[in-house]
C-alpha cells in the first residue's frame, strides 16, 4: 500500500465483524464520517469507544436530544452572563472570548491531536439538524461571528455517527458519509461477544440461555426484540441469581430483563406458557421448538 494508514483491528472488549472493520478503516482513510445504523442494542455506541481504545485516542461524545441544535455543537455565546457582568462590573466584558463556550464539535476541532468524535443518535434531533452540520463536517471548520474567528480542525477527528432510523436523514448528508448497517449477530458471533463480557461463564448455562434468547427473538408480534445488550444483562442476572442451566428454559427467570414492554411479556407468556398449561403432557421443549425458524 502506498500510504501508511491507521488501521482499526478491533479491541479486546469488543467483537467486530470483518465488514464493520472494513467500513471503519475506509471511513478513516477517506476522512469521512462513518454512519452506523442497526437495531438498538447491537453496540453502535460502544463501537466508538472501542475505536478510541484500540487506536489509543481520546473519545468525545456528543449526545443528541430532540432539542439539540447544530449550533450547540459548535459554540455557545453566553449573552446573559455578559450582560450581568457588565452590570456588576465583574470579569472582562470587553473580551467576548470569555463568553464563548465551545461545544463538542468545537472541542474536537480544537484538540491538538486526532481524537474520536461520537455523534450519538443523530436521528433524535430536528429534521434539519444533519443539514446544518454539512459544511462543518465537510470542511472541519466553522466561523464565530462574535469574535471574528474561524475554528479549524488541527487534525480531522474520526467521526462516528449513530442512528436508530427514527427519522430519514437527508440525501445531501448521506452522500458525505460512509454507511454501515450492523446486522444482528449470528449465534457463533454472539458466543464470542458473550465470552468477552462473561469469560468465566459456564458453557452449559450459556448454551441454554442463548437458545432461549433466540427463541424469544423469533416469536412473532414482539414489539421490541431483545438485543445483545439485554442478553448480556440477562446472563449477569442469571449468574447473580444462581440459576441452574436446566431451569432457564423451564422457568425463564428474570424475563423482564429481556423484554421491556408489558405487551411483549404478555405475548410470550401467552404463547409459551398457556399452551404448556393446557397440554400438560407436552414438554416445554416441544412448545419452544415451534418458534425456531
Amino acid at each position, binding site marked *: *500500500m*502506498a500510504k501508511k*494508514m491507521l488501521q482499526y483491528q478491533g479491541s479486546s472488549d469488543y467483537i467486530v465483524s470483518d465488514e464493520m472493520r472494513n467500513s471503519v478503516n*475506509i471511513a478513516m482513510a477517506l476522512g469521512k464520517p462513518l454512519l452506523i445504523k442497526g437495531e438498538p442494542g447491537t453496540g453502535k455506541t460502544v463501537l466508538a469507544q472501542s475505536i478510541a481504545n484500540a487506536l489509543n485516542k481520546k473519545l468525545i461524545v456528543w449526545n443528541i436530544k430532540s432539542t439539540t441544535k447544530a449550533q450547540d455543537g459548535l459554540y455557545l455565546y453566553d449573552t*446573559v452572563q455578559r450582560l450581568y457582568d457588565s452590570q456588576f462590573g465583574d470579569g472582562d466584558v470587553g473580551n467576548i472570548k470569555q463568553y464563548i463556550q465551545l461545544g463538542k464539535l468545537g472541542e474536537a476541532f480544537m484538540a491538538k491531536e486526532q481524537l474520536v468524535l461520537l455523534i450519538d443518535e443523530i436521528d433524535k434531533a430536528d429534521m434539519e439538524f444533519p443539514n446544518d452540520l454539512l459544511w462543518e463536517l465537510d470542511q472541519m471548520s466553522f466561523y464565530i461571528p462574535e469574535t471574528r474567528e474561524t475554528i479549524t480542525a488541527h487534525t480531522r477527528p474520526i467521526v462516528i455517527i449513530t442512528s436508530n432510523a427514527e427519522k*430519514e436523514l437527508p440525501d445531501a448528508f448521506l452522500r458525505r458519509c460512509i454507511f*454501515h*448497517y450492523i446486522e444482528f449477530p449470528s449465534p457463533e458471533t454472539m458466543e464470542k461477544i458473550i465470552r468477552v463480557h462473561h469469560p468465566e461463564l459456564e458453557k452449559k448455562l450459556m448454551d441454554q440461555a442463548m437458545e432461549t434468547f433466540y427463541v424469544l427473538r423469533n416469536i412473532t408480534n414482539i414489539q421490541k426484540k431483545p438485543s445483545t445488550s439485554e442478553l448480556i444483562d440477562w446472563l449477569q442476572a442469571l449468574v447473580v441469581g444462581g440459576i441452574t442451566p436446566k431451569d432457564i428454559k423451564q422457568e425463564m427467570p428474570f424475563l423482564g430483563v429481556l423484554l421491556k414492554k408489558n405487551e411483549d411479556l404478555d405475548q410470550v407468556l401467552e404463547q409459551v406458557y398457556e399452551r404448556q398449561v393446557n397440554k400438560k403432557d407436552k414438554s416445554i421443549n416441544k412448545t419452544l421448538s415451534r418458534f425456531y425458524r
Partner: protein
Amino acid sequence: MFTHLFYTLRNFGLPVSMNEWQDLMEALEEGMAGSSLTGFYYLCRAILVKTEAHYDRFDLAFASFFKDVDTPEGLPEKIWEWLDKQLPALEATEDMKRRHRNLDLDELKRMLEERMAQQKGEHHGGNRWIGTGGTSPFGHSGYHPGGYRLGGTSQQLSAVKVAGMRRFQEFRTDETLGVRQFQLALRKLRQFTTRLEGEKTELDLNSTIDQTSKNAGRLELVWERPRQNSIKVLLLMDSGGSMTIYSRLCNQLFTAVNHSHHFKDLKIFFFHNCIYDHLYHGPECSRLECTDTEYILNTYAQDYRLIIVGDASMSPYELLEVGGIIDWHQFNDTPGLEWLKRLRHRFEYSVWLNPINKKYWDYSSGTFTIKVIRQLFPMEELTLEGLEAAVNKLKTRQATAI
C-alpha cells in the same frame, strides 16, 4: 470497465452520485479494496450505499455485473499449492500503478488461461506467472490494481457469492424515498400557540432593552415562552380491499405522519371501505380493538385536523344504505354517509386524501361514491402536491356543501 458498474448500479435503482463515485475511485487508488473482489464488494457497499434498504438492490446489481467473474473453480490443485505461501507486504510504486491500471477483465481472463497452459512450476515474486507476491495480475499477496486474486487468506466467500446470497432482502422497503418529502410537507401543518402556556425560557431582547432603559440602565432581563405547535391530528385510514394496491403509498404517508413529532397530538384509526359505528386501532380492522365512532365524535375537540385517507370507491349501498357494511358479520343502523356527515360537521378542519390519480376520479369504478364524498369533504390526491394542497386547506375551516 468500472464506469459501466456505475451505470449498472444506477439502473438497479441505487441513487449513486458522482461524489460518491469519486470517493470510491480515490479509495481504489489507495488500494483499499485489497485487490480482491470481496474487498471491492465491501468497499463499494460502504461508500455507495447509504441505507440498509438498498443493500438488496446493491447485491443484485453487483451479482449481475460480476456474474461472469466467479472465482475459477477448475483451477488445478497444483496452482493452489503454489499460492499457499506467505510473503512480506509489497510496496507499490507510482510507475507500477500506472502500468497496471488499464487491464480489461476479458483480457485478464484470456491471459490467465494462457498462463495456466504455459506455467510449469511454483512462482513467487516477479510480474508474470501465477504465484504469490510480485506484481503479476494473477495470484495473491501481490500488487495489481486490476488483478485476479487466486486463493490466499481472508476469502471465505467470493464477493459475487456474498452478493448472490441476498441477505438484506427483508430490509428492502422501497418506501424511504417519499417519506422525507411527505414529512417536509406535513411540517407546514403547524399553528403556533399563543405565548400563554409553558415555561419562560427565551430571552426577549426587545423587552429587555425597553425595561433596562426604563430602569435607567440597570439591567433587567425579560423572558418569554417559546411558541409551540398546537396542531392536533386525527388520521383515519382505509385499509384492505381495494386499498391494497396503494399500500406502499399509504405506508409512506403513515410513516411520515407517525414520525412527525411536531404535532401536539396524533391519533390514528383504521376503517374498511367506509366509516360506520366503529373505528379500528390496527390496519387489520379487528373487532377486538376498536373505538366507537360516537365516542370519537363526542370526545375529540373540534380543532383536531381530520385527515381521511381512502379511495372512496365502494358500492353505492355501502355508503347509502342501512346494513350496507361490507363485513358479513356486522350490521349498521346508520348509513355510512351519515357517519361521514357527522364527522365532517364535528371536525371543520378536514380533508380527504385519495390515492387514486385525480384524472381517474370521474372514470374509475368508484366514480359515484367519489362524487358523493367529494361533495362532503374537500378531496385531494395522495401525492406530494396533493398533500401540500391538503395541508393548506387544513389551516382554515372548510365550508361544507351540505
